[in-house]
């Protein structure tokens, strides 16, 4: 399948937005990083909006979006509902932060709801791409890869924001290291899951499409993330995620999260984008002959 850049940006930015919001809710539950709460909420909201705008570039007729929009079995509808619900909770979160003044405290129930909704949004978004027609996509580990990106993005972004607000915390290091490890594990898991779908496609030994006589219809490795044209992107996804883990450990050792937090964010971004590129490159129909 051709690379769908608006969707690649949408999923990556939404995982980032959900990751940041989820991480700040986690911090709030533990009573940590109070000065970074408002910048984190603004960052998350901006990422959500930019991701939302990106997806519109995928729609050929976005002006018809309310022309019957709302079919509940559609993943797109479910995503929209999840985004709206999360946005409402973010507004409530914002109100509590403003009321709290310098203390910037939110109730534990709100932080817990925010954390759950951040996970739900990413899960719903990933679920909308789970299609039986595309074996490489039809895996819960595909959802896992997006959750992994959120786990990488959120703590790393919070680490930068805490550092900027002079909140050098041990908690930052702990959460970031765990987040980056979760990300790399889930990147590996999804690449393995994609590779394992190789035998899931309908196989015909010899065939010919007279309408495309010169086309290389099934180039070697097209459905495999670990061979052919997908391989470099899989390697980049893997190495960048691993560099994120290394960055988290270096940041922990040097206690310099302005630099190493940003390095972690950059690593997760590169890894997430590369993995979504592999995702589209291996998005081949189970009956790949038309």
């Amino acid at each position: 399948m051709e690379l769908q850049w608006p969707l690649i940006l949408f999923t990556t930015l939404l995982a980032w937005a959900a990751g940041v919001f989820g991480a700040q809710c986690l911090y709030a539950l533990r009573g940590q990083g109070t000065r970074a709460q408002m910048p984190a909420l603004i960052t998350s909201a901006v990422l959500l909006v930019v991701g939302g705008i990106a997806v519109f570039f995928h729609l050929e007729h976005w002006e018809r979006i309310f022309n019957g929009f709302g079919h509940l079995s559609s993943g797109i509808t479910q995503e929209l509902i999840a985004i709206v619900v999360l946005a409402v909770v973010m507004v409530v979160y914002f109100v509590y932060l403003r009321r709290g003044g310098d203390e910037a405290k939110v109730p534990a129930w709100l932080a817990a709801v925010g954390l759950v909704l951040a996970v739900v949004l990413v899960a719903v978004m990933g679920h909308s791409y789970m299609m039986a027609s595309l074996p490489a996509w039809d895996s819960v580990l595909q959802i896992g890869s997006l959750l992994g990106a959120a786990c990488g993005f959120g703590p790393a972004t919070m680490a930068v924001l805490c550092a900027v607000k002079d909140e050098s915390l041990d908690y930052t290091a702990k959460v970031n290291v765990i987040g980056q490890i979760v990300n790399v594990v889930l990147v590996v898991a999804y690449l393995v899951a994609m590779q394992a779908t190789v035998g899931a496609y309908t196989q015909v030994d010899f065939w010919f499409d007279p309408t495309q006589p010169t086309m290389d219809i099934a180039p070697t490795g097209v459905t495999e993330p670990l061979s052919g044209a997908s391989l470099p992107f899989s390697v980049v996804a893997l190495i960048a995620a691993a560099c994120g883990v290394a960055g988290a450990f270096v940041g922990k050792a040097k206690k310099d999260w302005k630099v190493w937090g940003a390095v972690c964010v950059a690593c997760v971004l590169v890894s997430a984008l590369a993995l979504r590129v592999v995702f589209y490159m291996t998005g081949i129909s189970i009956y790949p002959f038309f």
Partner: protein
Amino acid sequence: MARYAIVTDLNRCVGCQACSAACKTINGVMPGDFWIKTLRIGPTPKEGGSGDWPDVEMYFLPIQCQHCEDPECVKVCPTQASHVTEDGTVQIDKDKCIGCQFCAMACPYGVRYLNEEERVVEKCTLCQQRTAQGELPQCVAQCGSRARFFGDLDEGLESFQALAPTHDLATPYEEMMQNRTTLGEWVEPFTEADVYHLTDTGNGPKHCYILRNRKWQGEE
């Protein structure tokens, strides 16, 4: 509610592409786009044979929208532009389509595509404009080897219809188009084991393929 479908007798199909050409002509399908394609499957070595010619077999396989029983394309459509109609066919309301192309991704057969001019998704309509008036889909009517038959699955495969030959060159075109034969009358005998479908991922493809004395290639 009917369950309209097409049955193709693959032992009769000669791969002439008349179905593709007829479809493109009557439905205005743009160059480079197809609502139906006929693939050549094989030549495949026969089981127990030498592995070389003449111990090989092949057949032609016309592929189009399968107008599934439980279509994934309909489930993923956010605006219900893709929907199942009363005749059991899957249709696209182009005025509702926002061009998200999730239906194209969800189709196991890849038969949906974005019409670059109208910027909406399209695919085979089973010639709804013709069948609603009692006519046959154009790919059935123009089939060069009378391999394709159209009908309602609830009425049984034997009842599926195609145009019948008149053998009288003076027969007016309109009359010729009303002259029908059925699959039960026209094709060689077949059993239930000879009836195949394209790979089913739970979507329930309705179109049927009859293939006798040869091995069906690929999973059903």
